[in-house]
């Protein structure tokens, strides 16, 4: 389990992270979302030890992260970076060796990953000669080539075509399923919504929300219901505690001031006739995001 405890970091007099704490659980795909400049990249760099925090600690399984621990981290930086003129396979082997793998293991992992990511035909091409999507896959391979136990990926899905998104998603979920904590940032909220188990929302260097996806939805969902009945539904707007959002013939969308008001509406509707549908609306991640960063 990877944990950040009260991390603060400033550049000059600009505070980029203030008192940031969150947890990336073992086997949990944790989405890290926030607007540009919110502090995602800085937080990731702190986790990787590339930046030293002004205050706070990063721990792995309860103990402060050491340089030795970090060799077992897989990291994909924000802007794509591999040596442009170096061959893909050579580059992956080089990175694996720097992470302490033996030459044979380095080569075996490289070959296996290139196969998984559909890059085996490109192994001996230089990085600059690859298409952008393939460069991105090579970048993912670079983060995974030393079989890391912890993954920290900055925008792993940006610039990927839908097929590549599925491939990468598969590779990452497999790592998570094997028990690795996986932290990834993304501005593509639909992907985050589909993929993540847990969510961390950051804005202006502070954590605005964190927890499992379901928990956040339940907490942040508010009390919005949708009711569909056989007859006219316009009476809903007159129920005490109800704020109508959209009432159209037999279908009503409305907010309530409490759980009880919602149940009262349902009860009343059932008394009037057939109820075709009554459900609490789940807010999308985008809605939660908009709400928490305000």
């Amino acid at each position, binding site marked *: 389990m990877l944990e950040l405890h009260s991390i603060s970091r400033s550049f000059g007099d600009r505070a980029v992270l203030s008192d940031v704490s969150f947890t990336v659980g073992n086997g949990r795909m944790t989405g890290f979302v926030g607007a540009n400049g919110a502090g995602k990249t800085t937080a990731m*760099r702190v986790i*990787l*030890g*590339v*930046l030293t925090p002004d205050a706070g600690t990063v721990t792995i399984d309860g103990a402060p992260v050491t*340089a*030795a621990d*970090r*060799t*077992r*981290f897989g*990291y994909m*930086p*924000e*802007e*794509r*970076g*591999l*040596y*442009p*003129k*170096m061959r893909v396979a050579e580059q992956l082997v*080089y*990175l694996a*060796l*720097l*992470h*302490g*793998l*033996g030459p044979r*293991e380095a080569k075996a*992992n490289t070959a*296996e990953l290139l*196969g*998984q990511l559909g890059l085996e035909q490109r192994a001996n091409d230089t990085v600059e000669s690859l298409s952008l999507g393939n460069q991105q896959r090579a970048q993912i391979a*670079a*983060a*995974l080539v*030393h*079989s*890391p*136990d912890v993954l920290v990926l900055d925008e792993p899905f940006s610039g990927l075509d839908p097929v590549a998104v*599925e*491939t990468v*998603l*598969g*590779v990452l*979920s*497999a*790592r998570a399923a*094997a*028990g690795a904590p996986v932290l990834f940032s993304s501005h593509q909220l639909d992907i985050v919504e589909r993929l993540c188990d847990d969510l961390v929302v950051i804005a202006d260097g502070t954590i605005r929300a964190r927890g499992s996806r379901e928990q956040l939805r339940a907490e942040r969902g508010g009390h919005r219901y949708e009711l569909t009945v056989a007859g006219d539904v316009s009476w809903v707007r007159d129920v005490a505690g109800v704020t109508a959002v959209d009432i159209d013939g037999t279908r009503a969308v409305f907010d309530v001031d409490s759980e009880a008001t919602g149940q009262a509406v349902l009860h009343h509707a059932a008394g009037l006739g057939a109820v075709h549908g009554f459900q609490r609306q789940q807010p999308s991640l985008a809605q939660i995001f908009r709400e928490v960063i305000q």
Partner: protein
Amino acid sequence: MARPVPTSPSGARPIAATRAVRLVAGREITTRLRSRSFLVSSAILMLTVLASIIIGGVLTATADLPKVAVQRSVVNALPTVMSYETVLVQTVAEAEQLLRDGEVEAAVLSGSTESDLGFTVVGLDQAPTAVIASLSTQPDVRILDPGSQDPFLVYLVALGFGLVFFASSITFGTTIAQSVVEEKQTRIVEILLATISARLLLAGKVIGNSLLAFGQIILITTVASIGLLVTGQQSLLGQVGPAVGWFVLFFVFGFVLLAALFAASGSLVSRVEDVGTVISPVMTLVMIPYLGVILFNDNALVLAVMSYVPFSAPVGMPMRLFLGTAEWWEPLLSLAILILTTAGAIALGARIYSNALLRTGSRVRLRDAIAG
């Protein structure tokens, strides 16, 4: 849709500092050796050196070895070592014909009316003094103030040291700076720094490129030495040899000094396009010895100063050794100054490099990079 991923405990572990440096240096070297532009520029430098030696050899060979017709009957009377090429003839008429045709510059014929040497030197329209001198008995010569070399040779040697130092420093220095910025621009530096420290990365880059530069210098001096031997310029090799030895030694430290500064300068910018401006101060430091030694190779004071200033010592001190104007302890003192400066530059360079490496965007101010 994912196939199974290797999930066995990974073999990832921290690596020893020496291994990290070796890996980084190894990558620098292989990358450079695969670069066509590097190979071409090295070949051009090498060919330039070789060509100048061969041309020099041909010029001196034709200038110093006049042809002389020698009558067979006097061959045994002549000194065994002669500084001219002999053309054997039988008769006086044959010799005179060669002389008139301009085939030979002088003839040595048997018989003498005025001396007891037993031969006569014949010239066409004037006395062939060079031939006469080589056949004459010379008195012992003692020179009170030796050491002044042929000015043209001095100029050539100065140009040689200056050019080689300049070309190597510029080539490899620029390469180091570009390679630093490339890592910064592509952000691969973040992956690298998550694994090894900035100091080890810097050490690997400097050592890798320095080894290449030393290799090039040694190759050039070897080619030059062989060239001098093959073209029969042993005496020149004897004069220049010790200075070249010192040059290689000074170059080793002088280059590392510059390499550290080039790397530190490069780390201040984030785009390869900006490398040119940021390394111009270091480029100036490289230009000074190059221009200095060419313009002032006959000015003892300037050379003396240059031979102690760390940036120009690799050119200035070997030059003074070649001219014979340096005491035996002077190269050692200068080398000590150079080594201390190099150590300081590495410490400062590593600090700047470590601090500036992750600051992307606009150019990092030197003061900020030093302060951290």
